[in-house]
């Protein structure tokens, strides 16, 4: 298989995860959009932090007026599991150029880890396997950032649609089977979203 074929196979294998990620990106975008963050801060969090469960928790911490130290320490604890992912995939990055390691590390989420680790278990390490990894990781990243952006823009452009209500409702209902990374933080909807609930 060529680079392109590996890359496309990665894109293809990421599709099932998109079904689970997009709804949570939309929920994040609307919750962050109606809170104290500007549009670009909300989307910037998805672009630069790129860690669903930490983002959800931090949004509710910010709305509760938590201090910077609490927010950064929480991020540290919630994301500590990534060290294990990093260690598990470390044998596969041997001999990889620095820029590849930086990029793939930045994109190392629960979902990327689950798909890529399975690929290495089933197929072993092949010379072009990092193109598969790149396909998976870029697709999931694009999905998370774009769903956050679209939802954030919509909730700001059309506040009367009460998308925020719908989202916080979904947030309360959200299922463990849909997005394991967010399940841990599911029970703390931000204060402003609760206040907007009709019931």
């Amino acid at each position, binding site marked *: 298989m060529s680079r392109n074929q590996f890359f496309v196979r990665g894109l293809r294998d990421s*599709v*099932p*995860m998109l*079904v*689970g990620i997009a709804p949570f990106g939309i929920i994040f975008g609307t919750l962050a959009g109606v809170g*104290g*963050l500007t549009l670009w*801060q909300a989307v*910037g*969090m998805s672009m*630069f*932090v*790129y*860690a669903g469960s*930490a983002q959800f928790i*931090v949004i509710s911490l*910010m709305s509760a007026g938590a201090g*910077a130290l609490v*927010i*950064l320490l929480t*991020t540290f604890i919630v*994301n*500590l*599991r*990534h*060290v*294990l*992912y*990093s*260690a*598990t*995939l*470390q*044998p596969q*990055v*041997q*001999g*990889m150029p620095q820029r590849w*390691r*930086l990029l*793939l*590390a*930045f994109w*190392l989420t*629960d979902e990327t*880890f*689950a798909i890529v*680790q*399975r690929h290495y278990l089933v197929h072993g390490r092949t010379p072009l396997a990092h193109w598969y990894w790149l396909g998976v990781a870029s697709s999931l990243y694009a999905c998370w950032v774009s769903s956050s952006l679209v939802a954030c823009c919509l909730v700001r452009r059309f506040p009367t649609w009460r998308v925020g209500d719908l989202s916080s409702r979904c947030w309360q*209902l959200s*299922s*463990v*089977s*849909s997005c*394991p*990374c967010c*399940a*841990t933080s*599911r*029970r703390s909807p931000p204060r402003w979203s609760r206040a907007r609930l009709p019931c």
Partner: protein
Amino acid sequence: MTYWWLILGMAAITFLMRYSLFAWPNLRFPPVVRQGLHYVPTAVLTAIVVPGMLLPDGAHWRLSLDNVYLLAGVMSIGIAAISRSLLATIGGGLLVFFLLRWAMGQM
């Protein structure tokens, strides 16, 4: 402005943890550690999913038949075991969850 500093701080912390062991690509773990790392996917994903099924509010055990998180979770495991398909598991799990929720009047 403060929010931007917080976001950059979160980004730095998260990235450093993800990059932590990629920074030494030639490091070799001893066999015991390598053996242990085999269990990371099972261990971490179980730790994320199981509390969400058994303690949906994060504090109280709910081992009852009206716990939709538990029922839909068990169904998802069943779908995964039979279909061996990620898409069927995620899609089916979501569908079962919302159908049960609707059927039990918990929407």
